[in-house]
């Protein structure tokens, strides 16, 4: 097999994942895109390992470690996402602005506290409202 095939597939998959990380707003979707990037790197490593016929199997063993690493990161990542959801009522990345530097940041941080409960129903209502208005 020509090495270009798996290598190009891996690179294209990586860039698709990169697009997802930059373009997606929902944090869980961003996590999915990161998984695509890691899977792409794994493909690269396996292909190179088989091509090099590495007697230490470095690429494939590293891929096994990467798969386990991806699982560990998704575990802790989702735990953090759930914590943010519970405290802030939203997982949309551009709504989480309490920590930004700048004149509005302190007010945003103050607002993050008491209006947590108000924000959550608003997010769901907004979703429902927009669903009914879009044909």
């Amino acid at each position, binding site marked *: *097999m*020509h090495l*270009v*095939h*798996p290598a190009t597939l891996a690179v*294209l*998959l*990586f*860039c*698709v*994942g*990169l*697009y997802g990380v*930059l*373009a*997606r*707003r*929902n944090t*869980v979707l961003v996590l*999915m895109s990161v*998984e*695509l990037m890691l*899977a792409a790197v*794994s*493909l690269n490593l*396996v*292909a190179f*390992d*088989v*091509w090099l016929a590495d007697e*230490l*199997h470095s690429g*494939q*063993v590293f891929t*096994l*470690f990467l*798969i*386990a*690493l991806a*699982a560990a*990161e*998704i*575990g*802790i990542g*989702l*735990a*953090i*996402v*759930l*914590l943010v959801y*519970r*405290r802030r009522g939203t*997982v949309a990345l*551009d709504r989480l602005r309490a920590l930004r530097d700048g004149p509005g940041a302190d007010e945003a941080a103050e607002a993050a506290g008491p209006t*947590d*409960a108000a924000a*959550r129903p608003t997010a*769901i209502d*907004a*979703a429902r409202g927009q669903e009914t208005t879009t044909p």
Partner: protein
Amino acid sequence: MSAGALPVLAAVGESGRSVLSPSGVEIVFLLVAVVVLGAAILCVTSRHLVHAALYLVVALGGLAVEYLLLTAEFIAWVQVLIYLGSVVVLLLFGLMLTRAPIGPSPDADSRNKPVALVVALAAAATLVTLVVDAFRTTWIDLSTPHGRSDALGESLFRTWVLPFEALSVLLLAALVGAIVISRARRDDSEEGRR
């Protein structure tokens, strides 16, 4: 750009192989690659959150088939077990617990879409050119399987013990960290009721 598609297409390796006369394995690889890429693109562009997760399943499953074609059988099955079996299941749970709507979600994509597209296309163009230029006349020899479980296991426990043990600490830390963060507290549920 001196490296283009033409030199790759025209290159002929030893034993007269060239990209333009693919073997059966290559044809299957390319077909599955189309499926994988298509599913991946749909995963990052779909506005239905659960559909995105299911497209991810297709993409990762397709990758497992690619691993089998590359004779890396152990990796293929680990990919199915862990990526499909646990990672995607976790993602689906995450979607469910953050009340992802059934049907299109309005907050799936941010306003950065055009910028993201430009960045991703530029990165893809650069990297594909690099890769195609580098591997113009390199073929993988698939006649002897290189990813058998016994060979991999032997290598893992003879040469790679230290990173293996580091990985065990990593997994334990991830486990404890995830559990301690997601322990629900009394005042979290009180806020929800208010």
